């Protein structure tokens, strides 16, 4: 049996990148508890559209929790109150009737607001361009056992590769640091044999770009990992620190 909720939403509204923004309150009635958080915003947008008001801009794509497109700081928590999940997988049954929900965009110097709740996360793309790949000559698929990769190494690499690049780590960190994201990418590739040849240049170039983008520093508060929908561990940050020092002190690059 479906219950319905009456809610008050306080949403950050900002018409454009260089325009001042403010919080605007909206009253919503009869929201089904079966709705996802984004569907609730869709309902609100339909109402705003019907009234002839500007709709709220927010990022979304797959709505299956795997693309990393949705964001939102919901009541001060990246992707809402649940752990290991994205905003699109957050359901309204998580809220109580009469709740006031504060919705904010990711806040970071490196993630400027484009409009309302949409931020520009292309800083992440520029970091990836600096080394979040392996250079291989493509051709026929190689024989599967040509390069042995022990199962624990595969697991470590896969756990890091689970990062969907949503930016919740930056949003949750008090320093707006991107260490968890960058370390996940560095760990994913540098633990696998295919990533080893570019190991030293990768970490140095990616860290240099991360610093250039204006992300903060890591103070090991672990908020990033707690907010991460893919539950990336901070052990990756230590691995990146290790990789970076190894590259700086021991490699010729």
């Amino acid at each position, binding site marked *: 049996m479906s219950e319905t909720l009456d809610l008050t939403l306080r949403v950050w509204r900002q018409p454009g990148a260089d325009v001042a923004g403010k919080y605007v309150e909206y009253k919503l009635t009869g929201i089904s508890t079966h709705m996802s958080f984004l569907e609730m915003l869709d309902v609100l947008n339909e109402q705003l559209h019907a009234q002839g008001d500007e709709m709220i801009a927010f990022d979304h794509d797959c709505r299956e929790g795997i693309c990393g497109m949705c964001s939102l700081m919901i009541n001060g*928590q*990246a992707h809402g109150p649940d752990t290991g999940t994205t905003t699109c997988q957050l359901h309204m049954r998580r809220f109580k009737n009469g709740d006031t929900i*504060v919705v904010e965009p990711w806040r970071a110097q490196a993630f400027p607001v484009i409009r309302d709740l949409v931020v520009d996360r292309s800083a992440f793309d520029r970091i990836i361009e600096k080394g979040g790949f392996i250079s291989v000559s493509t051709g026929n698929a190689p024989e599967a056992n040509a390069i042995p990769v022990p199962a624990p190494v595969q697991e470590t690499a896969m756990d890091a590769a689970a990062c969907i690049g949503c930016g919740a780590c930056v949003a949750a960190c008090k320093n707006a640091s991107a260490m968890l994201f960058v370390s996940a990418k560095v760990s994913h590739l540098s633990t696998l044999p295919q990533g080893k040849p570019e190991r030293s240049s990768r970490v140095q170039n990616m860290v240099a770009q991360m610093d250039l983008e*204006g992300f903060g520093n890591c103070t090991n508060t672990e*908020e990033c990992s707690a907010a991460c929908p893919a539950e990336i561990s901070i052990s990756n940050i230590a691995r990146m620190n290790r990789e970076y020092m190894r590259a700086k002190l021991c490699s010729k690059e």
Partner: protein
Amino acid sequence: MVTKSAEKQQPSPSASGKSATKWIMTLLSSSLGQKFVMGITGLLLCGFLVVHLAGNLLVYVGADAYNTYAHDLHSMLLLPVAEVGLFLLLFAHIALAFKLTSDNRKARHISYHEKQSKIEEPPSFFGKTPMGRTSSWMFLSGSIILIFLIVHMIDMKLHLNPAVTYTVETPEGVIEADPYSIIVQVLGSWSAAVYIIGTIILGFHLSHGFWSAFQSLGLNHPKYTPWIRKFAILFAAVIAIGFASLPIWGLFIH
């Protein structure tokens, strides 16, 4: 100790050695390199705390033991060198703290209307906000420790505390009071409160700083990290209780 010698080279790279020092400069200007220096200096300062506490606990043995220790320590030829080293460690740690904190504030240029932690923790005074964790106020605790250190230097090194008599009159003339009588005077006065607060805040700073240093140095391992984190709490408690016991002893027991 590549990082330390590099620090000195940074301000004046010679024209010929520019390419040789370039990688060091990139390292020390990077976020990771600075956190590395922060971790190394922090751990070395922890080493100093152990020695300093061990020496000071000699007050419990007696005035003679303490005075002999203080006298032997200060007659060591290399002590000024060690003191300069200690000052450089402190300076690097504090200067980087200001630099990194200012960077971090810039990175989060607009603060959130509301911020809640997702870390499962027992309920604290601060509720669900991240401020319930010592890691959230390392700069604040560090600043309080810095103020405490300045007071400590005025009391024990510069001998400028007006409530303390640093000299004694003897038949041979006015001579410097022995270290034991100075420490008893300082810890028996109102300054004791400053020492208790300062050392307890130091404990909170260490409870996060100790394991955090290992993480910044890349020393994370599923077998050892849980022990390092437990040891950090134990280490912080021993240092804080050990040092805080001195003013409590000076105030109530001595």
